[in-house]
């Protein structure tokens, strides 16, 4: 049986993000058959929600004022334990989308709310929150392959690779993807990086963007299948970030995974990719 949640949204009425937070809350409650907590009523008569609050709690704020989070933190008994949370303004920004201006969400905005609701329900619990950089922290250890004067780095753990020299870094039900150090050196200084659209579905080994240098244009072949939930605008603006730091700052897109176990069977772990690069390095021509 799918997990049920209590959901505490903010009550923002005078900005677009307030109604969006409410919509996300309603979608989450409907999807998980959870309990909706009215922040105004809870603030006045908290006892009315004693039973509901036995469920794990999701808090949804519209903006940086974080009224719902503050309400949860200031509740009697040392505050409520929050399992997951979302702040709508940040979440829209991360998707490269605008919350809009109107107080009634349009169909496009509602579709994005649905996406965020689904993410909330499938996200890891608090500690590796949605979009958290900590979830994609620096790999512990790099192995290297040296060929002539060229040194190629490969993270030994936490990354999966395909034979197109693209990687996926896993965190819960999400993965970031990018190109390997071998590939960025083979291409040389990157001048363009095309990002995918947020919301698109990507199949395993589909193109999830592209990179261009003076030598070549190359598709970024996604090692995993899923839906694009975030992109990295920094690499579109400054593609050389991928040359400088292909495995961490040089991520291109973040996917909500669809079939990790199925995808994994066709991928290489760090050691196997290391062996592949050793083989390829002999043919490397800068």
């Amino acid at each position, binding site marked *: 049986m799918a997990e049920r949640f209590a959901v505490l949204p903010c009550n923002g009425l005078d900005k677009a993000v307030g109604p969006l937070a409410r919509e996300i809350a309603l979608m989450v409650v409907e999807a998980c058959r959870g309990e909706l907590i009215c922040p105004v009523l809870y603030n006045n008569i908290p006892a009315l929600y004693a039973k509901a609050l036995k469920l794990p709690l999701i808090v949804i704020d519209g903006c940086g004022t974080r009224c719902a989070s503050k309400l949860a933190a200031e509740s009697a008994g040392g505050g409520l334990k929050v399992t997951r949370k979302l702040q709508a303004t940040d979440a829209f920004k991360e998707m490269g989308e605008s919350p809009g201006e109107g107080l009634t969400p349009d169909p496009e905005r509602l579709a994005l709310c649905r996406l965020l609701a689904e993410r909330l329900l499938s996200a890891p619990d608090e500690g590796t929150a949605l979009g958290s950089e900590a979830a994609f922290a620096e790999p512990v250890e790099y192995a290297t392959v040296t060929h002539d004067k060229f040194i190629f780095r490969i993270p030994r753990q936490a990354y999966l690779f395909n034979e197109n020299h693209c990687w996926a870094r896993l965190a819960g039900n999400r993965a970031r993807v990018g190109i390997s150090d071998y590939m960025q050196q083979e291409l*040389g*200084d990157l*001048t*363009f990086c095309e990002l995918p659209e947020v919301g698109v579905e990507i199949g395993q080994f589909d193109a999830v963007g592209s990179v261009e240098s*003076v030598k070549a244009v190359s598709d970024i072949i996604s090692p995993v299948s899923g839906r694009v939930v975030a992109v990295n605008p920094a690499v579109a603006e400054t593609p*050389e970030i991928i*040359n400088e730091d292909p495995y961490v700052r040089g991520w291109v897109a973040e996917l909500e995974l669809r079939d990790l176990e199925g995808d994994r069977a066709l991928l290489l772990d760090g050691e196997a990719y290391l062996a592949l690069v050793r083989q390829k390095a002999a043919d490397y021509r*800068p």
Partner: protein
Amino acid sequence: MAESANGNVLVIPCSGIGKVHGLMAREATYRVVDDLEPEASDTLCLALLVKGDEEAVKAVRTRPCITIDGCPKLCSYKNVQLAGGTIAESVRVVDAFKGRKGAQPGTATELAGDGWTITDEIAQQIAARVRELCGGKER
């Protein structure tokens, strides 16, 4: 930025041999110092500067310098700075490609059509800066 009171503006490329950008930096320099502003600009061997050649070090410290680097490694900029040079402008060839998707510049040995076109644009930009530094007007 200070005018060129002590002599010609120095235009110093990285000349990286491994990439087409290095060749473009070199050729843009020659376009400026040989063709566009031969009376107002000179170039200088970067390797000589790094070696600590006295004349080269003195030149970068007493004349305004424009560095042209092929790639983000910034070999010319960093080495001129380390030598105590006054960098009036730092140009990166790779930036010139960002507005030119699909450009075909050639190779590290020989430039092709786009390579020369972009090189000449960079050279015009630098020549304008040379004129500014010498107190002249921009076109």
